[in-house]
C-alpha cells in the first residue's frame, strides 16, 4: 500500500513537473507573446505584466525541475498550489467577464481561457495538494523533537 502511494507520488511529481516544463519553455522563447496573453486578462498594470512574462516561465521550469529531480520539491509543490490557484481565479474571472482570450497556459495563439482549462487546473492542483501533504507529513516526521 505504501509502495503504491510512493509510486503515485512519484508519478504525480513527474506529471506536474513535465507539464510545467512544457508550459514554460515556449514562453521563455517568446516572452513578448506571453506578455500579450497576460495583458489580455486586463487584471494587472502593464509593468507587472512584463515582469510576470519574464519571470513566470522560468519559475515554471524551475518548479518542474524541482518536482522531477526531488530537490526542493516540497517548496515546488507549495508554489504549484499557489500558481494553480492564481490561474484558476484568472481564467474564471476572464470567463465571467466574457473575454474570449488565449489562456497563456501553453503555447500562445489559442483562445482557450475556458472551463476545460479550469477543470485541468483543478485536477493538477489537487495532485499538487496531495503530494504536498505527503511531503509535509514526511518532513514533520523527520523533524527532531524539541528538547523541552
Amino acid at each position, binding site marked *: 500500500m505504501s509502495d503504491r502511494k510512493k509510486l503515485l507520488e512519484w508519478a504525480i511529481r513527474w506529471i506536474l513537473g513535465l507539464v510545467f516544463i512544457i508550459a514554460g519553455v515556449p514562453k521563455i522563447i517568446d516572452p513578448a507573446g506571453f506578455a500579450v496573453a497576460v495583458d489580455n486578462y486586463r487584471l494587472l498594470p502593464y509593468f507587472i505584466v512584463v515582469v510576470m512574462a*519574464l519571470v513566470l516561465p*522560468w519559475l515554471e521550469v524551475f*518548479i518542474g525541475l524541482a518536482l522531477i529531480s526531488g530537490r526542493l520539491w516540497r517548496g515546488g509543490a507549495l508554489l504549484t498550489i499557489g500558481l494553480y490557484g492564481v490561474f484558476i481565479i484568472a481564467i474564471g474571472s476572464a470567463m465571467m467577464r*466574457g473575454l474570449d482570450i488565449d489562456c497563456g497556459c501553453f503555447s500562445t495563439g489559442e483562445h482557450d481561457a475556458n472551463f476545460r482549462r479550469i477543470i485541468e487546473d483543478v485536477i493538477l492542483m489537487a495532485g499538487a495538494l496531495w503530494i504536498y501533504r505527503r511531503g*509535509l*507529513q514526511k518532513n514533520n516526521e523527520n523533524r527532531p523533537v524539541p528538547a523541552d
Partner: protein
Amino acid sequence: MGKYWINAKIMRESLVLVVLAVIVAAAFQLFRPNSELLSFDRPQITFAADSLLTAPLPAISIDDSSAFGQAVAIGEPIVITIEQMQYLLETDAAIALDARSPQEFAAGHLPGARNLPLEELYEHEETIQKWSKNKWLATYCDGPPCDQGEVLAWELTGRGFDRVAIFAPGTMGWQAAGLPLQKGERVHE
C-alpha cells in the same frame, strides 16, 4: 506537528525557487543573443494617414509603419483612428467587423457592425466572399491589448481583400470618446 500546513523549511525552498527564477530571467533577458528587451511601456500604435482612406486603392507603399513595426503596403491591413472609423461608417465606406465572441458583441458593439468571431471564420467563407471588395473591412475587438481584430484583419487580407483596416482603439476607445455602442444579439447569419 502534523497540523501545520506550512513550515519554515518549505517556505525557504519556495523562496529559493522564486529567487532563482528572478535571477535567471533577468540574466537571460540581458545576455541572450539577438534578444529584444521587453519594454515596460505598452506599445504605441501608429495610425494610417487620412489620405489612404479616400484613395481609390491603397498606395503601394506609404512612409509609415503600422502598430506592428511593418511597412504598410498593398495587401496589408492599415490601422485607423476613431475619427477615421467614424468617417468610414458615416460615408458607408466600410463594413465594421466585430471579431469578439457573440456574448461580447451582444453586450455592446459599434453601430451597424457584424459579428465575425475568429473561431467562426471558416463557417462563413461563402458570405465573406460575397462582400464588396470596394468597401473597407474594418475589424476591431475591445482595444489594446486584444489582438482578435488584428488577426481577423490579416485573415481577410489573405482572402484577397485589399481594403482592410484594423480599428485599433476598439470598443473601449469608441466608448471613451463618448460615442454610443449598440446593444443586442447579432441578427445576420
